């Protein structure tokens, strides 16, 4: 191997190992390689989100009308909670840098403290995301789906606020019950039935002149189209299904792909945060046990730190493309 080197100097062994042309250790380089490839995976997700969104640019759900909740408080607070989550993650990134910095200076106790704070930040974030998912899946107003798979939402004409199905739907006694799998010829059950049938919602709608339909189409002003009462009366005839909350097949917020991308992108990111927390916990205990003290350097903290910052970096993009744009 060495015979191919033409630079002359015998002590400079280019391919024999031992030198670091990029000034970084093997482990750190490999972490960077992983981060670059993972960044490409996330970019693939976000770019395909962009694809679907540009394809349905006139009917895509508006994020501030979907994510309006803050835990323990009722009311309409678009974005505030996601902004808080972003801040928590950036903050835990900061404590991670401080842990790396303390590691460089071989200050064991400081590194322990900062690692602990980082783990807490990560746990708060994952918990918030779980809550966000639960709220999203549960839904709040309910909607109808038309034959073409489009979503019809309801708005109160006098206040302009959203109307929940429970606000106006009539309860009609009927014998439609959940089809359990031991009742049928086919061994299929079904998921839970929506709270109301299409018929109940339609009857309630016809009886209450204060309810208008809002369609998916976005107007020039960037708002969803609100139909007049006459248009609404025609539109409701297209209704086929009652949709409450969200799943991978349909959701009450609008385009079906919206919920799919929400679950995939924030889920993939949340899984990264979760793995990050697990890895941080391992490193945390290693520091306590003095593994790095004996090894003579805290490079492991730095490598894990790189991953943790990367998770934060991805969230910055998810936040922009999912919640802001």
């Amino acid at each position, binding site marked *: 191997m060495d015979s191919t080197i033409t630079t002359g100097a015998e002590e400079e062994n280019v391919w024999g190992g031992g030198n670091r*042309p*990029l*000034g*970084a250790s093997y482990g750190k*380089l490999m972490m*960077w390689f992983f*981060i*670059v490839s993972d*960044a*490409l995976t996330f*970019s*693939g997700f976000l*770019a*395909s989100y*962009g*694809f*679907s*969104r*540009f*394809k*349905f*640019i006139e009917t895509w759900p508006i994020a*501030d009308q979907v994510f309006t909740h803050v835990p323990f408080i009722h009311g309409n607070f*678009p*974005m*505030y909670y996601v*902004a808080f989550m*972003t*801040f928590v993650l*950036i*903050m835990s*990134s*900061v404590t*991670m*840098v401080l842990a790396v*910095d303390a590691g*460089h200076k071989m200050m064991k106790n400081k590194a322990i403290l900062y690692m602990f704070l980082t783990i807490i930040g990560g746990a708060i974030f994952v918990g918030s995301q779980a809550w966000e998912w639960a709220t999203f899946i549960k839904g709040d107003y309910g909607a109808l789906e*038309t*034959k*073409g798979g*489009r979503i019809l939402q309801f708005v109160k004409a006098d206040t302009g606020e959203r109307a929940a199905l429970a606000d106006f739907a009539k309860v009609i006694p009927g014998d439609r019950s959940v089809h359990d799998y031991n009742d049928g010829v086919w061994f299929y059950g079904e998921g839970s039935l929506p709270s109301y049938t299409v018929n109940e919602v339609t009857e309630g709608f016809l009886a209450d002149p204060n309810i208008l339909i809002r369609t*998916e189409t976005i107007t020039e002003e*960037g708002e969803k189209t609100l139909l007049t009462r006459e248009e609404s009366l025609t539109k409701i005839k297209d209704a086929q299904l009652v949709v409450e909350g969200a799943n991978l097949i349909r959701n009450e917020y609008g385009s079906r792909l919206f919920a799919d991308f929400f679950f995939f992108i924030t889920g993939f990111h949340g899984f990264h945060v979760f793995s990050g927390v697990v890895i941080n916990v391992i490193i945390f205990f290693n520091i306590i046990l003095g593994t790095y003290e004996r090894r003579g*350097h*805290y*490079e492991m903290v*730095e490598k894990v*730190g*790189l991953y943790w*910052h*990367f998770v*934060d*970096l991805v969230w*910055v*993009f998810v*936040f*922009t493309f999912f*919640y*802001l*744009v």
Partner: protein
Amino acid sequence: MSHEHKLAIFRGTVKFKSNTQKIWGVLIFLTIVTTIEVALGITKPHILVANTFIGMKILNWVFIILTLVKAYYIAWDFMHLRDEKSSLRRAIVWTPIFLVSYLIFILLFEADYIYNVFKDGFIEWNF
């Protein structure tokens, strides 16, 4: 592992005394940028929404640029790319930038084409 830290940000306009101080400085900057983003997202100023640039609202361009600014400071200061050799930095940064720009260009162009087919191509889907 005794890296030299470069302690100036904003092209040398702001200098810090220690690495710890720089991190807090960057945190304050990132928080300000996030606050601006959220404020714009909630108020949606009319001038930024009404006008478009290359088919996208100015407001969305503002969001994307602010995001890239945030990404820069996270990568440069938190992931301390600022302190790495320029060859490593370039290998890490330009590879994704090249590939992702290409992917975004292809996908968004194609999406816009499909949008037009759905709109003008005798296909009824919004019913």
